[in-house]
């Protein structure tokens, strides 16, 4: 027995992604990589952005890490969403996601732009868990900054 809020937080889609994460496993040839830690629980993610040479387009996201169902599924859902986007577009989606996560449930994530990652919207009602959902996205933002700085 659990509340509807809890079921909204842990939707089947989210639990599926946490059990079968997309993009798991680091690969050579990344344009940038970032390691992030959530100091409250010790959860970690190392995320790599792969960018088509000479362009801005993300060809793949690979990552490794360990953590709760929210942080693991969030990294997996990010991976699905990011492929094919340009770096500025990807940064835009990260900003959008962060705004929704910090809204304490007031803002529904835009499914048009965020895809299945919008399923993480329930997290924003649980302020203690927002960092879990943001972990991979913060790593990606850091990786984007590195790519931009290297140019």
């Amino acid at each position, binding site marked *: *027995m*659990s*509340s509807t*809020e*809890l079921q909204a*937080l*842990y939707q089947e889609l989210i*639990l599926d992604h946490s*059990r079968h994460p997309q993009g798991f496993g680091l690969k050579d040839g990344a344009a940038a990589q970032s390691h992030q830690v959530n100091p*409250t*629980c*010790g*959860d970690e993610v190392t995320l790599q952005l792969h960018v088509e040479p000479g362009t801005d387009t993300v060809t793949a996201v690979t990552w490794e890490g*360990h*953590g*709760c*169902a*929210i942080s693991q599924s969030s990294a997996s859902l990010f991976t699905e969403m990011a492929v094919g986007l340009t770096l500025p577009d990807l940064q835009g989606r990260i900003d959008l996601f962060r705004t929704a996560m910090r809204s304490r449930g007031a803002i529904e994530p835009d499914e048009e732009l965020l895809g299945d990652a919008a399923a993480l919207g329930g997290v924003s009602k*649980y302020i203690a*868990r927002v960092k*879990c959902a943001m972990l991979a996205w913060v790593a990606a933002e850091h990786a984007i900054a590195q790519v931009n700085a290297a140019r």
Partner: protein
Amino acid sequence: MTDTTSPTLTGAFSDAELRDIRADFAILGTVVNGAPLVYLDSGATSQKPRQVLDAERYFYEHDNAAVHRGAHTLAALATESFEDARAVVARFVGAADDEIVWTSNATEGINLVAYAISNASLGRGGDDALRIGPGDEIVVTEMEHHANLIPWQELAARTGATLRFIPILDDGSLDLGRLDSIVTERTRVLAFTHVSNVLGIVNPVDVLVARARAVGAVTVLDACQSAPHLTLDLKALGVDFAVFSGHKMLGPTGIGVLYGRSELLNDLPPFLTGGSMITTVTMESAQYLPAPQRFEAGTQRVSQTVGLAAAVRYLETVGMHRIAEHEAALGERLVAGLAALPGVTVLGQAAGLHRVGLASFDLAGVHSHDVGQFLDDRGIAVRVGHHCAQPLHRRFGVTSTTRASAYLYSTADEIDQVVDGVRDAATFFGVTR
């Protein structure tokens, strides 16, 4: 769920007594997420009875003033309350009044000792015996809270001393077989926890103190998880220093205690300096008061000491031995209930060692954050994460665990609720085997 309804497991309190105790804690009547609060996070911080809140309010409404300065009536009343509180706490742990130093919390107490030794090592006063440097060793254990690890790492780095540690065995107990090879003539400080905040195991203080004394090392006891839960006689334990925090023992936040053997405290130079800890001050230098004032620079926390004294009186009225018995029964029930669940590993189950009402566990395939979230949905408050003991978790091959910790107001029914909740969490997250 359980058939453990044996009266021996209900501990030292009758149902009526436990109901009366719980009635003193207004917060225990709170509804969380539509369910009555089940507060099993007392290891992080305890709840406060109205007697403590009333004492603080009374102080502010009748006696409030700065202490140890001023000649007016309220200043005298406040100073009296402040020093009375010190006497109450001293008696509670078997110490003399001037062996009790007020700190903000236990972390500050440990840092105070580490920095005072550091200052002595720089030649800033104090006894030669408390100076350390290259070739000297500081020893801790692998089960320490970060608060009893990092200050010693830093002291070692500042002085050139070496930090070593006593490892723990698979059952969570200290590897005492290696004690004599780790604590040697080179050891100057042996810092260890009385009760592990993750394992709930009570360490053999007598064995550790005997070895430290044999080699002339100073002992520092982290009593954060023992002072609230067990009868504590620091003189009988024979430690040189001990620390604990008021907020874990029914008192307010912002007040902690450092105990130091009188002669040792007076052999140490100060850590924090400023007003209220001096005798004569010139533009070039200052002379310091003896302990405890030497270590109490600046305007002191007063209402917090009054609150802590009220907390101690509350604990004494109930009786520490009865509290310990109540919690030991809850702890056994908790460990037995959790360990019987498929996929659950309770950290540290050393046979024959006394434990308090606390257990940390891993549910295979489910992260502690998710376990905690599931339990919170039922109004059950537990701690998740590494509990400020990353090396200990690494030792057991996990990053984080879920910890349930009871106190005198906890009930057997609450223990059963958390055990039921963990079993249902396994089903919810699909890891039932």
